[in-house]
C-alpha cells in the first residue's frame, strides 16, 4: 500500500502524458509512420515480442557484463587511488578527459579495433559507467568523520584496518548513489554500442526498424530499454536494502 502511494504521482503523470499523446494522434490524424499512438506502439510490441525478446536478452547480457566489470574495476581503482595520492593526482585529470570523448567517435573505432563481438560493447559500457562509480566511491571515502579516524588510529589500527572498519562502510551510501547514476547509463550505452555495429541487441533492432521506417517498432524497443533500466535500478535498490546494516534496514525501536 505504501509503495503504491509512493508511485501514485508518477502513475498519474505518466497516464496523463500517454493520454495526451493518444488524443493528439487521434485528433490530428498524424501518420503512424511519423508518430504512432501509444496503443499502436503497444500493439507493435505485442506482435513483435518474439523477435524483440532475444535482442533484449542480448542487451541485458552485455549491459550486465559490462556494468559488473565496471563496478569491479571502479572499486579496485578507488582503493588504489585512495592509498596513493600521487596516483590520484596523476590519474584523475586523465579520467576526466576520458569522459569528454564523444561516444559517436569512439563506438565505430571500437568496432574497427575489436570487431563485432562482445569486447567492444563491454568496453564502451565500462567507459561510460566507470567514472561515476569511481567518483562516488572516492567522495564517500572522504566523508569519514575525523573522530572515527582518530579513534581507530589511537587504537593503533593500521591503514588497511582503518579502511576496512571506517572508510569502506562510510562510503556505502555514496557508492550506491553512484551505482544508480551509472546504471541509468549502462543500458543506453549498450544500445548505442549495438547501434554502431552488432549482430544482436536492441540497438541493432532499432537501426533495422528505423531503416524500414517503422517508428512504432523503434518506440517499442525504447519501451523495452526503459523497462530494462528500471529493472536494473530495482535490483540495485534491493541489493542496497538487503545488505544494509543499521536500523534503517530493519524496524526502528524507540529506546529513550
Amino acid at each position: 500500500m505504501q509503495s503504491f502511494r509512493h508511485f501514485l504521482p508518477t502513475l498519474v503523470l505518466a497516464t496523463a502524458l500517454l493520454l495526451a499523446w493518444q488524443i493528439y494522434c487521434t485528433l490530428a490524424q498524424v501518420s503512424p509512420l511519423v508518430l504512432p499512438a501509444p496503443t499502436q506502439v503497444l500493439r507493435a510490441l505485442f506482435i513483435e515480442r518474439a523477435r524483440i525478446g532475444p535482442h533484449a536478452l542480448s542487451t541485458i547480457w552485455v549491459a550486465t557484463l559490462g556494468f559488473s566489470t565496471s563496478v569491479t574495476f571502479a572499486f579496485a581503482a578507488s582503493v588504489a587511488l585512495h592509498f596513493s595520492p600521487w596516483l590520484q593526482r596523476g590519474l584523475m585529470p586523465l579520467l576526466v578527459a576520458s569522459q569528454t570523448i564523444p561516444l559517436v567517435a569512439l563506438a565505430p573505432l571500437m568496432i574497427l579495433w575489436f570487431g563485432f563481438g562482445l569486447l567492444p560493447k563491454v568496453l564502451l559500457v565500462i567507459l561510460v559507467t566507470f567514472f561515476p562509480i569511481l567518483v562516488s566511491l572516492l567522495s564517500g571515502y572522504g566523508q569519514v568523520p575525523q573522530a572515527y579516524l582518530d579513534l581507530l588510529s589511537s587504537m593503533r589500527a593500521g591503514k588497511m584496518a582503518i579502511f576496512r572498519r571506517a572508510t569502506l562502510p562510510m562510503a556505502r551510501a555514496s557508492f550506491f548513489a553512484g551505482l544508480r547514476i551509472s546504471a541509468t547509463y549502462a543500458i543506453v550505452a549498450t544500445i548505442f554500442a549495438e547501434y554502431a555495429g552488432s549482430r544482436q541487441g536492441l540497438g541493432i533492432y532499432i537501426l533495422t526498424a528505423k531503416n524500414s521506417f517503422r517508428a512504432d517498432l523503434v518506440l517499442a524497443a525504447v519501451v523495452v530499454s526503459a523497462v530494462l533500466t528500471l529493472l536494473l535500478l530495482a535490483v540495485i535498490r534491493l541489493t542496497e536494502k538487503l545488505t544494509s546494516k543499521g536500523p534503517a534496514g530493519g524496524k526502528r525501536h524507540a529506546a529513550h
Partner: protein
Amino acid sequence: MLHIEGLSISIENRKLVSDFSCALSENEVTCLIGPSGCGKTSVLKWLAGILSPTLGATGALTLDDTGITPPHASTTYQPQSDALFPWLTIAQNAALGLEVAGIPTKTARADVLMHFKTFGLAGCENLYPEQISGGMRQRAAFLRTLVQNSRFILLDEPFSALDAVTRLRMQAWLCDQLAHTPRGVLMVTHDLHEATQIADRILVMPAAGGPLAANISVTTPRHARTETAMAQIRTTLKSLLLES
C-alpha cells in the same frame, strides 16, 4: 607513572604549547583545564598519537622510566564525540578496540557483553547508536574505552555533548565506575564544576600554552564535595583561568 617532559607543539612557526611537563599517576583522575585555545586538546591528542601531521611536536613520554612513543597500548583515547559507528550495533561498537587489538571477534564480544549490565546498557546489545539516548551512547563509548583495560585513559571533554542533567548524572556514574575499576585518567575539560567534582588533581594550563600555571591536588572525598566545600578551590581556579 606516565611522564610528559618538555612537550612543545607548534603549527608552522607559532607555538601552541611550549615546554609542557606533567606526571599522571595510576588510579588517579587528573583534569586538565585551561582557557580555550591554550592547547589542552593538542596535548591529549599528542598523548593518543593522533596529533594532526600539520602540527610539529617535540617532547618525551616515559612510562615507568621507559621511553614510549604514542599511540601506546598503555593508553586508550576517547574522542569528544562518542564516535560510535552508526553501522555497528552497540555490542560491536563496544568491542571495536579489542578487535582492532587482534582479539578474535567471538572472545571480544563475549568479553564486552559481560559488562552491559553494570554500564546500564542491558537490552541495548543489538541496537544501533541512533536508537539509544545521548547518555547511553556516552556510556557505550566509555564501555568501549574501559574494556580495553589500558592503564591510562585519555578523555577529551567526554560530557560536552550532553544536556546539563545528563551530564551531572554521567559525572557521578563515571566516578562510580572508576571506584570499581580504578585507572589513571587524564580528562580535558573547560568546565570548572566538572573538574572539581571528578578530579583528584587539577592541572591548569596558561592561555599562552607554557608550563603549568598550577597543579592542585583535590583531597576532599568525592561524596563530601558539596558546593560549599568546593567553593574555595573553585574561586582559586576561576582567578587562575581569568588571569592567565
